């Protein structure tokens, strides 16, 4: 398939007999913004390092534009990396840092000068050519790291938690800038992060990993709205997750009640996990919903209030712009298309 620029088949990576990545398959389409998302230690960075060529898979094959590159050293891959801690060269000034890759590729001085100035303009650091690395702020160093990689016009750019060290405001700005750069330059991005919000904001496709295994692959909306298992539902945003039984197609029993839902094909009398997003729970007057509960706590979160509601032995997290005071009894209403059913893990 020609539109799959990077492809990994049956990739396993072990350190001293311990598998960090367990037999995963993945692919990246040309010009796609792919994010590998997961908690620390899930194998996401190891996967990225195998694509870059810093680690060799214990077993499995990595393809680049259809060619096997599993044993190709990093310096022969048309892939560049933006490192988490920037990894800029401290003894070189900004110009020499950015020009590093171009010099190796034997560009003429004139070409190098024009490419460097163009890329510095792209990252908004024109005029910084002669500055020293340690005279720059963290955000500026990150931009130089991005420029140093992009100036080589890689076919794929790998980014390993590149915004991890920046403060929240700067991180938000950089998220947008990175997304714009990716669109403008038409380069495939593979982005690694543990920040689910970052992943949802920027990606075309997300791979969610945990314990070295892929949990789900899909678009941000798919992953948010249709989590495939408890881990994904829990990891992406806030969720209420309850044990349930699929009575039959389009009917699920949980919280001691039968609910009409939009899911089918699980088989009758199957044990399932039921996911309900806090913003999908509607609060009404007592007795007006399917269930009744008492408000336990109210926390103002800026855009909305986060309320914990006790109903029978269960707790419900509810996000709403309307505040309900503590101790008040409310009715809880859930619409059929807000109920997400997931098969229980074995």
């Amino acid at each position, binding site marked *: 398939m020609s539109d799959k620029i990077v492809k990994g088949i049956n990739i396993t990576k072990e350190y001293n007999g311990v598998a960090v990545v367990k037999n995963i398959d993945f692919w990246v389409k040309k010009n796609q913004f792919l994010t590998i998302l997961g908690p620390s230690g899930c194998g996401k960075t190891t996967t990225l390092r195998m694509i*870059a*060529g810093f680690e060799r898979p214990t077993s499995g094959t990595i393809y680049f534009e259809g060619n096997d590159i599993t044993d190709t050293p*990093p310096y022969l891959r048309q892939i560049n*990396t933006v490192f988490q*801690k920037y*990894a800029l060269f401290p003894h070189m000034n900004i110009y020499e840092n950015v020009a*590093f890759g171009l010099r190796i590729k034997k560009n003429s001085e004139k070409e190098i000068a024009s490419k460097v100035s163009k890329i510095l303009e792209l990252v908004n650091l024109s005029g910084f050519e002669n500055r020293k690395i340690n005279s720059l702020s963290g955000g500026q160093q990150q931009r130089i790291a991005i420029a140093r990689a992009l100036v*080589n016009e890689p076919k794929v750019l790998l980014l390993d938690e590149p915004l991890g060290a920046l403060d929240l405001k700067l991180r938000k700005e950089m998220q947008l800038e990175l997304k714009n750069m990716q669109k403008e330059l038409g380069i495939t991005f593979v982005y690694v992060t543990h920040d689910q919000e970052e992943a949802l904001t920027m990606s075309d496709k997300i791979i969610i990993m945990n314990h070295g295994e892929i949990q789900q692959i899909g678009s941000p909306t798919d992953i948010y709205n249709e989590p495939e298992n408890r881990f994904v539902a829990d990891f992406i945003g806030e969720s209420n997750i309850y044990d349930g039984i699929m009575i039959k197609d389009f009917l699920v029993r949980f919280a001691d009640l039968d609910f009409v839902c939009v899911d089918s094909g699980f088989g009758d009398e199957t044990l399932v996990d039921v996911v309900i997003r806090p913003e999908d729970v509607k609060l009404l007057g007592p007795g007006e919903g399917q269930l009744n509960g008492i408000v336990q706590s109210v926390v103002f979160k800026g855009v909305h209030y986060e309320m914990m509601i006790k109903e029978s032995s269960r707790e419900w997290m509810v996000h709403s712009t309307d505040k309900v005071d503590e101790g008040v009894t409310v009715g809880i209403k859930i619409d059929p298309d807000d109920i997400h059913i997931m098969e229980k893990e074995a």
Partner: protein
Amino acid sequence: MVNKWVKRLYTLLIFTFLYAPIVVLIVFSFNDSKSTARWEGFTLDWYRSLFQNRYIMKSLYYTVLVAIISSISATAIGTFAAFGIFYMRTWKQKLVLNVNSIPLLNPDIVTGVSLMTLFVAMNMELGLMTMIIAHITFSVPYVVLSVLPKFKQMPGEMLEAAMDLGATPWYAFKNVILPEIKPGIITGGLIAFTLSIDDFVISFFTTGSGVSNLSIAIYSMARRGIKPEINALSTLMFASVLILLLIINKRTKIEDI
């Protein structure tokens, strides 16, 4: 008040104890008499005769030759060793570092005798070559210890970043790693050079007839009685080692800043 004077006196005593022999040596190297007990006026004769003594000049030549060859080789070997050790896994790194520091603590006489035994067992003729090898051997651990911290101070992932940008491992080492660790390499080289000039015990056991460095020359001359020339020669050696040490210290201080 009293306390302060006691402290000063104590310090003075210690320094007198430490440096009196060297001061006496230096003073009598300028003494216009064969006597090593009575001052009879200033002269530079002993220095003059030193430079006319063919045996001493030959020893000086060997000393400098051995110091240059052994310090350059030890610096190269030690630098690459540090490079390898830095990229090892933790427990292997600890093991190799411990193995590396054993020769530092080993008595010189043991190192000397064991090297001699090894050379003899290998049927190597003791001489210039064996002395150079011995000097390289005892200098390498010092170079490793002076270069390794520079690797550790290096920002992480630099080698990978360079290779990622298309650099072969050798190009990356030359253009990215080397400039970062250069201060450590130069300091290591200077230490190796100083140690080589300084060494007596190991050289004594690993060299053969006709090849002696200055320390050995002084020793064999002293056996035939202390001559003022020996004082002059020792003074010159002390001065050159002192200068080298001052340079090394100054470098380390600048690096710390």
